[in-house]
C-alpha cells in the first residue's frame, strides 16, 4: 500500500514549503541560533489554519538541521507526566536520525520536540498539561515547537506561551500557489489536469493545501485525466458558495422558492444554514419588528433541528428549511434594505473556545461541591459568584482553597480571572506551600516539599484524596493521605467518590 499523495509529496526540506517563505526563513534562523547555545526563546509557536504546512515545516526543519524529532499530538494522552516524559526522552535517550545516522543527545545531536495541536488540550483527560508545557517552554534543553490553529486557546491560559515563545504566523497560500503545487503533483503522477480544473480545485480548497491535494487525488483516482467538469463534482468544500447564494435569496431577493431550492440541493446540512442565517439576520433585518420575527422563525426552526437530532427522524428537516426560507423572508414587513457584506458565522469557533472553559469550570465546581457538601449546580449558581469576590479580595481565601479544596493553578486562575502563571496565582501557591512546610515541621521536610510541589500537577492523586480530606482543617493529613494512595487512573478522577 502506498502513501496517499499528501504524504508522498510532503516536502522533506524547508525549501519545499510553499507560500510562507518568511516563516521558513525565521524558523531556520532560530534553529541555527541553537548552535551557539540555548537561545533566548527556546520555543517556536507556529500559528495558522489547517493544512498549510505547519507540521510539515517543523519536521522539515529537524531534517534540514540533522536533528532527531520527538513528537506528541492530540491522539496521545497529554497529561503533565506524559509531557515531562517526552521532554525527558528528548534530552536523554539517543536515537537514530531520519537518515539512519546515530544521534547521541549527549554528544550534541539535538532533538526537536514537537507538540502538535497544542491548542486542543482536553479538559480532564489532559489535565496538568498546561503547567508542564509552561515549564517546558522556560526550561527545555532541546528546541521546542508548539503548533496551534487557535492561538488564543493557549495564550488565554498562560502568559508563558505568549512571552516565552517566538511566534510565527503561517498564511494560507494563494489559489495560484496551490494550483502550482497541484500541477507538479499531477505531472509526477502522469495525470493530465486541465488548467481550468486546477484552478477550480485550488479555489475550492480556500488555501487549505492538504485539502486540495486530497481533492486532486480523489478526482484522479483510476483516471489519466481530470477535466473541469469532473472538478465540478467537488461539492464538499463549496458549501461556502451555496451559503452566500442562500443569503442572497433570503435577504436580498426575497425569493423563498429559490432559497428553498438552494437548501434542498446543497450538501450543507440545515444546521450550517441555520448558523449562516443566524450570523446575518440582525444586520439584514434592522427594523425591530422584523428582527423579533426573524429571531422567532429561527428559534422555531432550531426546535425542529433539535427534534431531528434527538429522535433521529430526518423528516423534520423539511419544516426547519421552510422556516429558514419562507419564514425568514416573511419576517420582513418593513421595506428597510441592507447593503452589508454577508458574514461568515463565528459561532462555531467561538463555541470551540468556550468548550475548554466549560471543562475547567466544571472541574472547579466539582471540587468545590465535594468540599462544600453540595452539588456542582448549586456551586455554580449560588457559591461561585460569592467565592470569586472573596478570593479576589482576600489572598488568604485563595490559600484556603488551595489547601482544602485542592485547587490547581489553572482552576484558581479561572476563579479569580487571572492566568495560571500570573504573579497572584504563583504567590498564592508559594505561600500555601510555605505554610504547609511550617505546619509539618517534622519529619522529613524535604519529602513534604516535593509532594506539595507536584500536587498541582498530579490531578489524579489529588482528586482521589479529596473526599477523604474534606473535614481536615490542617494541611499535613491530606498530604499524607496523598502519599499512601496509589494514583487512580486519570480518566475517572472526578468520580472517585467511592475510593474509600
Amino acid at each position, binding site marked *: 500500500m502506498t502513501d496517499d499523495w499528501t504524504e508522498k509529496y510532503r516536502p522533506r526540506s524547508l525549501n519545499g514549503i510553499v507560500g510562507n517563505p518568511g516563516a521558513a526563513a525565521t524558523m531556520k534562523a532560530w534553529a541555527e541560533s541553537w548552535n551557539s547555545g540555548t537561545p533566548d526563546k527556546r520555543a517556536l509557536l507556529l500559528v495558522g489554519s489547517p493544512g498549510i504546512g505547519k507540521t510539515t515545516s517543523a519536521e522539515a526543519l529537524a531534517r534540514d538541521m540533522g536533528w532527531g524529532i520527538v513528537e506528541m499530538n492530540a491522539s496521545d494522552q497529554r497529561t503533565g507526566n506524559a509531557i515531562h516524559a517526552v521532554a525527558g526522552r528528548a534530552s536523554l535517550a539517543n536515537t537514530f536520525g531520519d537518515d539512519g545516522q546515530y544521534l547521541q543527545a549527549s554528544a550534541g545531536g539535538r532533538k526537536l520536540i514537537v507538540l502538535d495541536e497544542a491548542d486542543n488540550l482536553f479538559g480532564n483527560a489532559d489535565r496538568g498539561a498546561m503547567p508542564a508545557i509552561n515549564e517546558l517552554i522556560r526550561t527545555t534543553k532541546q528546541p521546542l515547537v508548539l503548533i496551534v490553529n487557535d492561538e488564543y486557546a493557549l495564550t488565554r491560559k498562560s502568559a508563558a506561551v505568549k512571552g516565552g515563545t517566538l511566534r510565527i504566523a503561517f498564511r494560507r497560500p494563494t489559489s495560484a500557489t496551490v494550483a502550482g503545487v497541484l500541477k507538479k503533483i499531477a505531472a509526477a503522477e502522469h495525470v493530465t489536469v486541465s488548467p481550468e480544473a486546477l484552478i477550480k480545485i485550488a479555489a475550492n480548497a480556500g488555501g487549505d493545501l492538504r485539502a486540495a491535494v486530497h481533492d486532486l487525488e480523489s478526482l484522479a483516482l483510476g483516471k489519466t485525466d481530470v477535466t473541469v467538469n469532473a472538478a465540478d463534482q467537488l461539492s464538499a468544500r463549496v458549501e461556502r458558495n451555496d451559503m452566500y447564494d442562500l443569503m442572497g435569496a433570503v435577504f436580498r431577493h426575497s425569493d423563498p422558492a429559490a432559497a428553498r431550492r438552494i437548501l434542498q440541493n446543497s450538501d450543507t446540512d440545515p*444546521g450550517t444554514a*441555520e*448558523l449562516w442565517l*443566524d450570523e446575518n439576520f*440582525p*444586520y439584514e433585518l434592522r427594523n*425591530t*419588528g422584523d*428582527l423579533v420575527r*426573524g*429571531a*422567532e422563525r*429561527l*428559534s422555531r426552526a*432550531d426546535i425542529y*433541528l*433539535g*427534534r431531528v*437530532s434527538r429522535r433521529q427522524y430526518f423528516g423534520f428537516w423539511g419544516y426547519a428549511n421552510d422556516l429558514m426560507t419562507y419564514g425568514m423572508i416573511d419576517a420582513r414587513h418593513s421595506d428597510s434594505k441592507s447593503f452589508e457584506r454577508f458574514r461568515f458565522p463565528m*459561532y462555531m469557533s*467561538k*463555541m470551540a*473556545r*468556550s468548550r475548554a*472553559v466549560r*471543562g*475547567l*469550570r*466544571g472541574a472547579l465546581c*466539582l471540587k468545590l*461541591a465535594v468540599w*462544600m*457538601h*453540595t*452539588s*456542582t*449546580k*448549586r456551586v455554580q*449558581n*449560588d*457559591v461561585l*459568584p*460569592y*467565592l470569586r*469576590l*472573596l478570593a479576589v*479580595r*482576600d489572598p*488568604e*481565601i485563595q*490559600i*484556603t482553597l488551595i*489547601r*482544602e479544596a485542592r485547587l490547581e493553578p489553572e482552576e484558581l486562575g479561572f476563579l479569580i480571572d487571572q492566568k495560571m502563571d500570573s504573579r497572584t496565582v504563583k504567590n498564592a501557591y508559594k505561600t500555601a506551600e510555605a505554610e504547609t512546610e511550617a505546619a509539618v515541621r517534622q519529619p522529613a521536610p524535604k519529602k513534604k516539599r516535593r509532594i506539595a510541589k507536584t500536587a498541582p500537577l498530579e490531578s489524579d492523586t489529588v482528586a482521589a484524596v479529596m473526599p*477523604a480530606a474534606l*473535614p481536615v*482543617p490542617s494541611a499535613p493529613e491530606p498530604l499524607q493521605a496523598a502519599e499512601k494512595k496509589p494514583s487512580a487512573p486519570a480518566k475517572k478522577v472526578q468520580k472517585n*467518590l*467511592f475510593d*474509600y
Partner: protein
Amino acid sequence: MNEIWTEKYRPKTLDEVVGQKHVTERLKAYVAARNMSHLMFTGPAGTGKTTCALAVARGMFGDNWRGNFIELNASDERGIDVVRGKIKEFARTAPLEGAEFKIIFMDEADALTNDAQAALRRTMEKYSRICRFIFSCNYASKIIDPIQSRCAVFRFQPLSKEDVTAFLQKIVAAEHVKIEDDALEGLVHVARGDMRRAVNGLQVAASTGETVTLDTVYQTTGMANPEAVRAMLETALGGDFVGARNKLDEIMITFGLSGQDIIRQVHSAYYSLSITDSEKVRLMDKTGEIEFRIVEGSNERIQLEALLAYLVMVGGNKR
C-alpha cells in the same frame, strides 16, 4: 488563614443545628439508640439537611465516621449506572470499626432518574442490615412512592428570621465583623431562610474590611448576579441587538455558562429591572418558553437570541 465561613461554622452536632427542633430531637433519639431506619430529609435549600446528615454520622460512628459514611450528590451522579455500580459496591461491603451499619447519604435525590430510583428499591432492602440510606431532596413528590414508604420522612422548615439572625450574630462576634443593625436585617431578608446564602452574603459584605452597611449588603447581593448578565439585558433593552449578542457570546465563552445557566441568571435579574410589572410578567413567560426551547432545540445561542430580540422590542416600546 481565612476560611470559608459556611464550612467553618457548619454545626458539628445535632445540638448545634439551628432551628428544626422537631427534626433534631427525633434524630438524637436514633443516635442514642445507635440505630436508625432509612431516612428522608425534605425541605428547601440551606435549611440544614446536609448538616444534619453529617451530624448523625458523627454521632453514630464517632471519630471514625468517615469510613462508614459516603456522600453522593444525585444531581452530579444521577444515572442508573451509579445505583447499579457504585452504590451497590459500597452497600454490600461490611461496616468498619465494629459499626453495625454504614450510611449512604444521597443528596438532591430528586435529581435521580426514575429508573435509578426504581433500581434503588432492591438495594435498600437487600442490604438494609448493613446499610442505611439518608435521602435529601427539595420535593418529596419527586421521589417514587416505594422509596418514600421505606423511609422515615423528616420535613425541614425554612429557617425563621430569628434563627438566621442569631446564627449570623454568632459569626459576627467570632469574626469581629463591624456591621450595622439594619444591614444584618437586610442580609437575613435577602437570604429568605437559606442559611448558606445568608452566611455567604455576610462574608462577602465583610470582606471589604469596613463597617457593613445596608448599602454594602444590597451591593454584594447584586454582584452575586454577575454584572455581565445585567449588562447584556440592558444593552438589549437599549435597542442594540448585535451588542447584546456579543455580550452573550462573551458570557458563554469567558464564564463558560450554559444556556440554562444564563436563563436562570437572566430570570433572577428581572426583579430589579426598571420596567413595569406587567412587562415583567410577559418577559418571565417568554423566558420560560425560551428555556423550554433550549431543552427542545439544538442551538442554545439561537434560542437566547430570540429572547434578546424580544427584549429589544420591550425596550423599544418604552423608548
